[in-house]
C-alpha cells in the first residue's frame, strides 16, 4: 500500500514536471540540433531518465537544473555517437544554407536564433538563450547552470551588447 502511494506521488511529481518543462526541453533540443525528430527523441529520453530517477526515490533539490543537465548530456552524447556534421561546420565549409537546404527545419527560426547566438563567445551562448529565448529570470538561470547570479547578470549584459553589435 505504501509503495503504491509512493509510486503515485512520484508519478504525480513526474507528470507535473513533464507538463512544465517538456516544451522547454523540446525547444532546447530543437535549438541545439535543428531537427524536430531528434529533438523529440532527446526530450523523451530526458524525461525517461527523470522518471527512472524519481522511481528510485531520489530527492531532487532543483528538478529544473537536473532536467537541463540530462538534456545537455544527451545532446553531447548524441553528437558524439552519431558523428553528426553540425550546421556551423557545413556553413564553414561553404555550404549555402538558404540556397541548398530544402529541409524546413533547418531554415526555421531555431536555425536563425542559433546562428546569431552561437556567433557569441561560448560563455554567453546558454545565458543569452535562456534569458532571451526562454525568458528565464537571473535566479532561474543561475540555478539551471549552477553559477552565481552575479555572473549570470554580467554575462547577460555583455552578451546582449555583443548581440546588438551583430545586428544590422
Amino acid at each position, binding site marked *: 500500500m505504501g509503495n503504491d502511494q509512493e509510486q503515485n506521488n512520484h508519478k504525480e511529481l513526474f*507528470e507535473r514536471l*513533464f*507538463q512544465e518543462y*517538456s*516544451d522547454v526541453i*523540446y*525547444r532546447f533540443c*530543437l*535549438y541545439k540540433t535543428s531537427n524536430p525528430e531528434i529533438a*523529440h527523441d532527446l*526530450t*523523451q529520453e530526458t*524525461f*525517461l*531518465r527523470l*522518471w*527512472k*530517477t524519481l*522511481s*528510485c526515490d*531520489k530527492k531532487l533539490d532543483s528538478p529544473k537544473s537536473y532536467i537541463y543537465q*540530462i538534456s545537455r*548530456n*544527451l545532446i*553531447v*552524447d548524441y553528437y*558524439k555517437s552519431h558523428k553528426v556534421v553540425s550546421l556551423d561546420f557545413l556553413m564553414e565549409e561553404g555550404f549555402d*544554407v538558404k540556397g541548398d537546404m530544402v529541409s524546413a527545419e533547418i531554415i*526555421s*527560426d*531555431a536555425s*536563425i*536564433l542559433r*546562428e*546569431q547566438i552561437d556567433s557569441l563567445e561560448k560563455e554567453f551562448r546558454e545565458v543569452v538563450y535562456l534569458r*532571451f*529565448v*526562454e*525568458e528565464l529570470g537571473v535566479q532561474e538561470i543561475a540555478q539551471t547552470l549552477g553559477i552565481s547570479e552575479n555572473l549570470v547578470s554580467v554575462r547577460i549584459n555583455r552578451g546582449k551588447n555583443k*548581440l*546588438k553589435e*551583430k*545586428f*544590422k
Partner: protein
Amino acid sequence: MKISQEQFNNSQKAFKESSLSAEQKEKMLSSIYSQAVTTPASIISPYTKHLFSKVLVSALAILLIFSGTTYACMQSLPGDLLYDAKVNLIEPLGLLLKIDPVKKRDCNISLLNKRVKEVEILKEKNELSKKSQEKSFRATKAKVEEIEKDGLIDEELKSRIAGELTKYNSLIGLETKIDSVFLINSKTEIESETKITVEPPKKVSVKAKISTTTVVDLNLDSGITSSTTLSATTTLATSTNLLGKVLDKVSEKINTKKDSVEESEQEEEKPSTIKLPVEVKVEVDTEPVKNLLGL
C-alpha cells in the same frame, strides 16, 4: 549572415511558440511509462560511463597480459626468451617488495636454489646447451654476488650456500665455475676436518717403574786380597748381569703392552695411559770398590 534586431525578435517569438502537441506529449508519456523498467537504474553520465568502460577494459587487459606474462616468465628456464625478463625484472621487483633484510636474504637464497634447480631440470631434459649454461651462469653469479654483498649469513647458511654452489658447479659444464667466499671458507673447513680424522690427537704414554733392590756387602776389613777382589768382581758382574736381564724383561714387557695399547687405540681411538706395575731400582754401592781399587 546579418539580421536586424526585429528579425531576431520575430524568430524568437516564433521559436518560442514551437512546442510539442498534446498528442505528442501523450504518446511520449505512455512511451516513457512502458519503457521504464520496474527497478530503474541510476543515471550514469555518458562521460563517466564511457570513461569507466574504457578504464575497466584497459585495466583488465593490462592485468591479463601482465599476469599471463609474469606466469610465463616464472616458468621459463635458461635459454628461454622470457628468462632474461624473469631474472632481471620480475625477480628484482619481487625483492624490492621485501623490506626486511632477513626476508630479502632468505628470498635471495631461495632464488639461488632455483638457479640450481633450473640447471638440474635442463640437465634431466638433456637441453643444457652452452647458451643456456652461460645465461644461467651469469644469473647465478649475480645472485651469489648479491648475497655476498648483503651479508647476514651465518655458518649454517654458509654451508648450505656452499653445498648449492658445489652442486651447481658439478652440474654446469663450463670451464669457468662459480667462485665465492662461501666456497673458500667451506674448503678450509673440510680440510681441517680431514686432518682430524686422519691424525687424531691421541696421546699415548707408557710409564714403567721397576724396582728391585740387590745389596751386596763387600767385607774389606781384612784388607784387599785376591779372594776379596775376585768376590767383588763376581758380585759386580752378577749385579750387571742381573740388571741386564731385568732391563731385557722390562723392555719385553713394555713392547707387549705397547702392542696391546695400539690395538685398543685402533678400536677406541682414545688417548690412553698405561701404567706398568713394575719398578726397577738398581743401586750399586761403588764406594768400597773405588776405595779398594784406589780410585
